[in-house]
């Protein structure tokens, strides 16, 4: 099955800094999502982005499907951005909801 690898595993930022999180996947995908798990454990849907670029406030994401990677950009980071960011993908031709999750990037934003 598809492999999803995220980097870096841990990231510490000063408030106001920018960051880029990376997600590599081993095969073609028909679904790719980015999630933020907040300190209370809730998985927040950030982007549904099997290809192209999307922006939502200080966050944006780009997926280059032909090169099998996706990037999540966080600009002007805030302490509330802390938590674990997960990338999850579905193999092309696979069941849409059978997401394969990466191990996540743990982000800590210091005041």
């Amino acid at each position, binding site marked *: 099955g598809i492999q999803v690898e995220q980097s870096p595993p841990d990231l510490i930022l000063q408030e106001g800094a920018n960051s880029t999180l990376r997600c590599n996947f081993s095969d073609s995908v028909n679904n790719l999502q980015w999630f933020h798990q907040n300190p209370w454990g809730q998985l927040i849907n950030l982007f549904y982005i099997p290809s192209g670029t999307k922006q939502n406030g200080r966050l944006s994401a780009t997926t280059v499907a032909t090169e099998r990677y996706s990037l999540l950009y966080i600009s002007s980071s805030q302490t509330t951005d802390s938590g674990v960011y997960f990338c999850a993908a579905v193999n092309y031709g696979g*069941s849409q909801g059978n*997401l394969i999750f990466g191990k996540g990037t743990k982000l800590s934003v210091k005041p």
Partner: protein
Amino acid sequence: EAGVTQFPSHSVIEKGQTVTLRCDPISGHDNLYWYRRVMGKEIKFLLHFVKESKQDESGMPNNRFLAERTGGTYSTLKVQPAELEDSGVYFCASSQDSIGLFFGEGSRLTVL
């Protein structure tokens, strides 16, 4: 609009007991999914309902796990009898069309 809701948020039971987790999807979402994250491991798919039918249950670990979605609305996931390795967080998600999955807050299960 209410999101995906799960109950209970945390359950502590003893090995051998039974636990039933409930998920209410976003209203109008035909697709409902169960995932879980056990200690130290990645979040893994368990199964997928389309309305009341099981579309894909390839991720269910064994026959101690039973998922139902009577009437195509809310879903329950029963673990009977619970084992220590079942401890973890059980997530429910729902979706409609190809817009991605929306997850609930999860139900944390601790088996002692």
